[in-house]
């Protein structure tokens, strides 16, 4: 069996940044396994700009952002295999994969980095009534068709869900000559960035209907019309509010789910809130030596934060390869997200293994104005940061100092919550 110090599953933004960071930390033997025919992942089809403001201080398009990292992978001669599907990861880090040239093969990995990204929530998970004709696409599928393959999925479009990909595709289809009639959003607010609502919808006069959902799809062979209706506070359609739109295409932008089939079969413990692995301060999963980063860990809104997180995972995997599993007899400190905070990444913290600073990322469950992000060390409130606005669509973070944590040797729980005062 071949062996590598670090095997990275996925060659998108997370996998690329993790590989570069692991090499910079001194690990020579690294292999990236990518199932597509090229590196770069989803960024290749995200041809719009706005990527990299935090990382490079300029607004790049997706392909340009990906290439910044691919260049480093090429310059460092980091090995990668394309068109290669990972079939299984065992608890002792044997990675089973296959492709057309090597057939099925196994690799013993010193450490594994999970960087498989996420998938769009499909129609089947949405319970939309009506027929099942052609012309219903996830927004990301439409994006691939238009931007990579050069096909228009349709001419008259209704979009369900106001996530960023749906908004971006509303503009993209409009620029290519389609008529986008309406964007319906089930929730009373959009999960998309304000900038996208203005520049992708308002610029082109596309209406956004909040608290609306699709109640009927017509068409036997191809979509011919879609009916939307307003929903009440119970999320149920209100009779009498139906509006029918003739169209040939329905795009779905209804959320992203981390792709953890491999993690599950490996026995990695998952967090039911994020659908991603439970990780410690080193971004290490419940299986020692298996790390996770990027959208497979929790869905991000900005690729810059994916790169930042993946860099940490790469460095920590490199450390694991050199120093082995950390022997600590201490019970790790647990993070609790409550009262407005939905989850934290990481979930646990071993102060002996942390850097001087630890970034804890989390999301809120609703829109909060003029509220405080509070951090409690057991029962003592030690951080109380006022925020003008927090929204579910924008990831939040707090930064913990090792110095401060060292003052609390018996600390059991760190709680993050949102407080009015």
């Amino acid at each position, binding site marked *: 069996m071949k062996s590598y110090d670090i095997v990275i599953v996925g060659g998108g933004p997370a996998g690329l940044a993790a590989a570069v960071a692991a090499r910079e930390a001194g690990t020579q033997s690294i292999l990236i396994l990518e199932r597509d025919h090229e590196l770069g992942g989803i960024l290749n089809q995200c*041809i719009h700009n706005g990527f990299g403001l935090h990382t490079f201080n300029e607004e790049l398009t997706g*392909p340009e952002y990906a290439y910044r990292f691919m260049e480093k992978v090429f310059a460092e001669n980091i090995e990668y295999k394309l068109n290669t599907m990972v079939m299984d990861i065992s608890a002792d880090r044997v990675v089973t994969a296959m492709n057309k040239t090597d057939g099925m093969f196994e690799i013993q990995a010193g450490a594994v980095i999970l960087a498989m990204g996420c998938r769009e929530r499909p129609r089947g998970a949405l319970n939309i009534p009506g027929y099942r004709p052609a012309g219903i696409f996830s927004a990301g599928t439409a994006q691939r068709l238009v931007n990579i393959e050069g096909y228009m999925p349709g001419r008259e479009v209704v979009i369900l869900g106001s996530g960023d990909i749906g908004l971006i595709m509303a503009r993209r289809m409009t620029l290519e000559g389609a008529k986008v009639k309406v964007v319906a959003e089930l929730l009373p607010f959009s999960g998309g960035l304000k900038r996208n609502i203005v520049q992708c919808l308002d610029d082109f006069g596309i209406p956004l209907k909040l608290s609306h959902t699709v109640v009927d799809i017509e068409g036997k062979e191809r979509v011919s019309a879609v009916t939307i209706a307003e929903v009440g506070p119970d999320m149920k359609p209100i009779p009498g509010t139906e509006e029918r739109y003739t169209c040939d295409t329905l795009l779905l932008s209804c959320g992203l789910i981390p792709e953890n089939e491999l993690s599950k079969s490996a026995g990695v413990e998952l967090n039911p809130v994020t659908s991603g692995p439970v990780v410690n301060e080193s971004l290490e999963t419940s299986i020692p030596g298996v790390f996770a980063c990027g959208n497979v860990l929790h869905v991000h809104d900005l690729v810059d934060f994916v790169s930042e997180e993946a860099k940490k995972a790469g460095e920590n995997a490199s450390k694991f390869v050199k120093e082995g599993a950390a022997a600590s007899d201490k019970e790790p400190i647990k993070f609790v997200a409550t009262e407005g905070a939905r989850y934290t990444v990481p979930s646990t913290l071993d102060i002996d293994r942390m850097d001087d600073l630890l970034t804890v990322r989390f999301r809120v469950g609703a829109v909060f104005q003029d509220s405080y992000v509070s951090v409690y060390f057991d029962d003592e409130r030690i951080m109380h940061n006022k925020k003008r606005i927090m929204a579910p669509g924008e990831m939040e973070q707090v930064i913990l100092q090792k110095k401060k944590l060292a003052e609390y040797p018996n600390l059991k729980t760190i709680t993050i919550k949102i407080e009015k005062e």
Partner: protein
Amino acid sequence: MTTKELTCIGCPMGCQITVQMEKGEVVSLEGYTCQKGEIYARKEVTNPTRIVTSTVLIEGGDKERLPVKTKNDIPKDKIFDVMKDIDAVVAKAPKKIGDVIIENVAGTGVEVIATRNIDRE
């Protein structure tokens, strides 16, 4: 006097800003809650601009489409003129990030450049 309603894009607050204009000059600005909003609103009512991104057909390459962008922002009311020029282009492989695809798009004086590398087939 004309009145324009804007949504600020500076942060998730999305402040609704009301701007009153007379003869192309801003007379009053209301509804913004920070400096970002004021700067955004002034620019948006006097000189709104956008970066346009799209793809062009490419021949002889290992991909079907070449993604492109306007190198700088162009006037917002020229978006569809820019798209018309972009749609008329057929590029030839190979192309590298930054290669100029159109020199002066829709008379804006702005270049359209490639945003990914495409090798020969």
